[in-house]
């Protein structure tokens, strides 16, 4: 697709400098090791292949979460969003979860989405915690604005942390945001934020070598299979 770079510079939003998220490894309930690391723009087309089958799953609002996440990642790929990042969870190279967000400004973070592809292992909880860790510890922000699209998300974020309610409209749908402050984050950190650093070399190399993903049917079964987990 031909691009007019002069116009492109006008269309591209401002980008804040963003230090990298240091990868970590988390032992899951089944004993498997999930590597959590930062994706780069070039990973987006691969990640979207995993998001796509979720667009058609109504259960637990996967459809809207996936549709919005798809758009957000595409916007990042096409340079149409300000200061976005994406963290991914991989087990043996396989993509099992995705979280993303962006910097609203230097002090305030905007949480976007959490998509767990393999369910029943608290992957969503771990990745959401990693996202908050990135905003508050690596980006050094003061707070993060958050909304939940599913009851599961509401329980995991608003209740478990617990977040404080604000009247600030959130970018996702305009509903009132909940806010994670540094005080709330550091109080919750001992019980909600886990993981080991550095990631053992062989695990990190395996994760970075390739983002593997299951076929569409397997992804649908894991999320919306009869068992529902």
């Amino acid at each position, binding site marked *: 697709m031909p691009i007019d770079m002069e116009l492109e510079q006008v269309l591209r939003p401002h980008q804040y400098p963003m230090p990298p998220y240091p990868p970590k490894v*988390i*032992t*899951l*309930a*089944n*004993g*498997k090791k999930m590597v959590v690391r930062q994706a780069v723009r070039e990973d987006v087309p691969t990640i979207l292949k995993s998001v796509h089958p979720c667009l058609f799953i109504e*259960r637990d609002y996967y459809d809207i979460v996936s549709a919005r996440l798809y758009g957000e990642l595409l916007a990042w790929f096409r340079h149409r969003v300000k200061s976005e990042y994406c963290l991914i969870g991989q087990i043996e190279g396989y993509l099992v979860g995705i979280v993303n967000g962006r910097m609203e400004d230097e002090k305030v973070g905007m949480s976007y989405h959490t998509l767990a592809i393999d369910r*029943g*292992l*608290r992957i969503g*909880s*771990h990745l959401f*915690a990693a996202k908050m860790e990135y905003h508050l510890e690596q980006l050094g922000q003061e707070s993060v604005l958050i909304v939940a699209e599913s*009851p599961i998300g509401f*329980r995991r974020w608003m209740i478990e942390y617990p977040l404080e309610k604000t009247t600030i409209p959130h970018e996702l749908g305009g509903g009132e945001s909940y806010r994670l402050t540094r005080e709330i984050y550091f109080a919750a950190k*001992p*019980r*909600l934020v*886990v*993981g080991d650093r550095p990631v053992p070399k062989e695990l990190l190399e395996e994760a970075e070598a390739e983002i593997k993903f299951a076929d569409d049917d397997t992804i649908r079964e894991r999320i919306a299979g*009869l*068992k*529902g*987990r």
Partner: protein
Amino acid sequence: MRDVAIIGAGIIPFGRRDEDTLMDMLAYASLKALDDAGLGDKSVDAVYVGNMGGGIIQHQTAIASSLVDRLNLLPAAAETIENGPASGGSAFKNGLLAVASGYYDFVLVVGGEKMREVTGWRATDFVATMTHPQAEYPYGITLPGLAGMFTRLYMEKYGVTREMLVSVALKNQEMGTLNPFAHVEMAISKEGILDDPASIVNNPTVADPLHLYDACPVSDGAAAVVLCPLDMAKKLNKVPVQIVGFGQATDNQTLQEREDPTDLKAVTLAAQKAFDMAKLKPADIDVAELHDAFTILEIAESEHIGFFKKGEGGKAALAGKTRLGGQIPINMSGGLKARGHPVGGTGVAQIVDIVFQLRHELPKDRQVKNAQKGLTINFGGFGNNVLVFILRRVEQ
């Protein structure tokens, strides 16, 4: 009184069944049991349905009346039995007595529940409606809360440890991965739920000292069996499974009113009645399905039933004595912990699992070799209404 046998058994996969109504699930399980019984032109005389929450969750009552019509079993007699989480066991008992009395020849017993159409906290609240309406419920008690207090006392009195509780969870979830009808088909590891620092997130406290993986899931599901007199069963093609013993006992509703809150008297008394009737001892049992709504209950029940001495159940679980090939294999279905716990369906599902065991129909990795006698405990309330059944394989 006539001897009674089970000639048909059916169960549907437990889990979250958004696409099915409660009536759909009861009908599917019934049809499987009726098919399995191979009754041919014969119909059933009566239908007993165990269900706890239809009136509350689905806003549907007279469920048995609806089911006989749905199954085209009219004009069979039909009753819904509500007895908390022991509803399935109570329905089975009523079917057993009806055939034993000679009044009915062929009886269908179904148990089922649809709990996943409400949120987890509403489901927890619904189950808590069985607690004392003045002394417990208004103060916010839930079944996990009761189980947490019971566990703490049991730990202090009998030295049960978290490792012992975890050993029950590991075994039952492992068995769940082998059971195609189980709600939870995910193996877990001790490292992931106990040893690793990440276990604080993977396996959070639910009701201290109980953690997430100490508790059964909230499930949709249904199971059914067909009963008839033993002499008629012997003329059919299937291996009959005879009900050789049953007992039921009750206890004070509130834990604090019991002389010793760690003493599950109703389990002991119901078991004694069942063993007396069957003229058997605990050591005669080859396989058991216990009511492990929480891991501590599998340990405590294994002691109160007489498989192990008080204080030895946890050690036995840790030592693998309750695994396949062990001294007494318990919950080879995965139990409530992994097969799932649709409250009104559990008592019947336990019977179905023991029938499969005694007919030697299960794959090697779940089948107790040459199992001849099996036992179930269906635990209502917090042990205040308990049913124990003993089943025996009848060689043709």
